[in-house]
C-alpha cells in the first residue's frame, strides 16, 4: 500500500528513505535524523543496460 505524497508533505508520516547510488545523499538525510536504508548498488548484468532489460523481461 503506497503512502500518499500529501501525507509526507503534511509531515504526518516521516519519510523513510532507500538510497540507491551515491552514499552522500543517504548520509546527509541520515545525519539530519531520518531513517535511511542503503542499497549496495552495482550495475546489473555487468553494466550492460540492454542485457539488464532482457533479464527484467525474463524474470
Amino acid at each position, binding site marked *: *500500500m*503506497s*503512502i*500518499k*505524497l*500529501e501525507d*509526507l*508533505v*503534511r*509531515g504526518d*508520516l*516521516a*519519510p*523513510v*528513505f*532507500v*538510497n*540507491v*547510488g*551515491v*552514499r*552522500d*545523499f*543517504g*548520509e*546527509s*538525510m541520515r545525519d*539530519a535524523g*531520518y*531513517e535511511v*536504508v*542503503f*542499497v*549496495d*548498488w*552495482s*550495475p*546489473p548484468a*555487468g*553494466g550492460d*543496460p540492454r542485457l*539488464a*532489460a532482457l533479464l*527484467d523481461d525474463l524474470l
Partner: protein
Amino acid sequence: MLVAQRTASEPGIRDASAVMATDANRKALAAIGYGDAGRDQDFAAAGPNDLVLAIEGEAAAVDSVIARADSYFARGSGPVAGVDAAPEPRSIAQALAARPDCNVAVISVPGEHAAREARAALSAGLHVFIFSSNVSVEDERALKTAARERGLVVMGPDCGTAYLGGAGIGFANAVRRGPIGIVAASGTGMQEFASLVHRAGSGISSGIGTGSRDLTDAIGGLSTMAGLDALEADPSTKVIALVSKPAGIATTVALAKRLSRCAKPVIPCLLGAESGDADALRPVFSIDEAVCAALRAAGANEPGFLQFDEHRMRERAASEIERMHPRQRYVRGLFAGGTLCYQAQAIFRRSGLTVYSNSPLHGMRELPDPRVSQNSAFVDLGAETFVQGRPHPMIDATERRTRFGHEGSDPSVAVILLDFILGAIASTDPVGDLLDRIREIRDAARASGRHLCVAASVCGTDDDRQSLQRQVRALEDAGVLVFASSAQAAIFCREAALLLARRGQVA
C-alpha cells in the same frame, strides 16, 4: 570528488581527475594518452563500477601520489573495517524486505541505469527522487505515467533538491518550516528560492522537485501537477511558488487551467519566459520577484535585502570600470547552478544584451566549444559536458578553478561572475575551494595593469554547515563584490556590460 582536489593540490601535480570508468570516460581518457595505448590491462578491464584516478604532473610526483593513493580516499564515514555489520541489501526489493516501511527512493546511479531502479521503486509503492540525469524522455514519461496511476510522484530525473515535510533531500539548504510551498524544475532554483525565503524570516512547507523537462509538452507537467495537488491539500501551505523554465504550449494551457482552480495563490516564476509567452499564467521573471510575491501573498513583509537602487548599482559598476584597462570588455559567468546561469541570461536579454553560453537561453548564442569562452559568456559548469563521470562543481571546484584561471588571464575580460551554493552534500567550504585562485589571478592581472572585477552571490543560510555569513565574509575580505542574491549579482553585471559596451563604442 575530493580525491581529485586533494591529489591536484600535491606539489608537482598539474592536474588530476577522478572519473568512473564508463565506456565514454575510458575512450575520452584513451584519446588523451591514458591507458598506454591499450597495453594497461587494469585500465582496459575497468568498468562503470570502478574509479579511475587520472594524474598529470612530474614523474616523481605522480609516482609518489600513486604510492599513497589509498590515503586520498580516507574519509570519516562508511562501514568501519573489522566491525561486523549486517550486509547491505543489493536491491530495492531486498531493502523493502528488510524495512517494509520505506516510502521514498533516492536514486543517483548512472543515468543509463536510473530508469530501471525507478521502475523497481514505483512497483514497490515508493515515491521516487532521481538525481541522475541522462534518462531518456520516453523513460521519463513512462515512469511519471506509471507513478500517476499508482498515486505516486517521480521527482526528476535531474532533480537536485526537494523538501518533504521537514526533510531536505539532495542538495538542500537548512531552512525553517513555514507557509510557502515550492514546485521547482531545478535544484538550484529551489535552493535559491528557499534560502531567500528563510533569510527573509519566513519558511518552506515542502518543496517538490520535478526535473528540468517536466513542463515540456513531451512530459506534460505530470510531476508539477502532482506537486500542486499535494501542496494544495496541505493545510500548512498558504501559497505555492512554481519555479521553472517556460512550459510548452499545450502544457501552458493545461497549467493555466490547473492554476485557475487552485484554492491557494500560486506564483509562477518562469525563468527565460518572454512577455506574451505565458501571459495566461501571469508569471514573474526572476527568483527574487517570486520570493517577494510569495512573501506578500503569505502576509509577510518584503525583506530589505531584496530591494536595491538600480542607480547605485550602475554607479558601483562604473567605479569598477574606471579602474580597468581599455582592452577589458567582457563579462564571464562561471556557474555551479544551472538555473542561476539561465536566470542571468534572462536578465541580460531583457536589457537587449546577448551573451554566449553552453546552455543558451532562446536568443542567446551557443558557445562552439563549452570549454572556451568568447566575448561575454555564461558557462554552466554543471552541464552534462562537464559532469559526465565527474563530480558536480557544487561538490568539487577543480574545473572551476582551472576555468577561472583561463578567464581571469584573458586580457579582454573585465568582470567574472560566480555563484556559490551551500547546503547538504555541497563542498564543506565552497568559497575556500576557490579563494586562493581568485587572489592569485587578480594579483597577476594587477601586475599586468588590469583591474579584474569579481562579482558573486552565495546561495544558502546561516544554518547551513558552511554558514552563509562566513562564506560571504571570506569573499568580501578578498575584495570580491558580494550581492544578496544571484539575480542582483547578474543585474550588477548587466550594468557593467552596458557601460563596457558604451565605452567600447566611444573608444
